[in-house]
């Protein structure tokens, strides 16, 4: 690292270092509570009304 004369190299180094790819942020844990999903108060609509 030579001071003064190495400005261009120095800039290249800076750019290389400062533009390293940065992953998108992790999302929060959006969560299903323990019991909720299974405690469905009314009959599920998924079951087919007609036997196919």
């Amino acid at each position: 690292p030579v001071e003064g004369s190495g400005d261009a190299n120095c800039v290249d180094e800076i750019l290389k270092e400062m533009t390293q790819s940065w992953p998108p942020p992790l999302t929060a844990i959006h969560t299903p509570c323990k019991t909720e999903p299974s405690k469905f108060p009314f009959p599920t609509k998924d079951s087919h009304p007609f036997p196919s």
Partner: protein
Amino acid sequence: AQSTEFSTNSTPDYVVKYLPLVSGDQRQSYKDDFNAEYDEYRLLHARVESVTRRFSQLDAQCRKLVPGTKEHQKMQEEVLKEYKKMKQDSPNYHVEKQRCEYLHNKLAHIKRLIADFDQRRSSSGL
């Protein structure tokens, strides 16, 4: 998608500390740990992201110019100036970035364990 940028050679502490989940209570405690550090992580992440974006812009502008020209020279000075300013504003930038990378990996690890647990539970439970 690409989450392999952050790699370390030795086994990180969180891999030792957070093992695959076996109970719902454990799940809650993992989630609490995740949330406890999530805000700090997001803050650091946003800061690094904005600095990275700024320098990427400068980089793109530099590439458009022909090396050796006055304009190029000026752009390079701009980069140096911006770098010095960044150093002044956040002298701990590199430490913060490393901390953020660490948190990213750690939180991703915890999150993955929770997701694995949920998947196992839903495929066996229902």
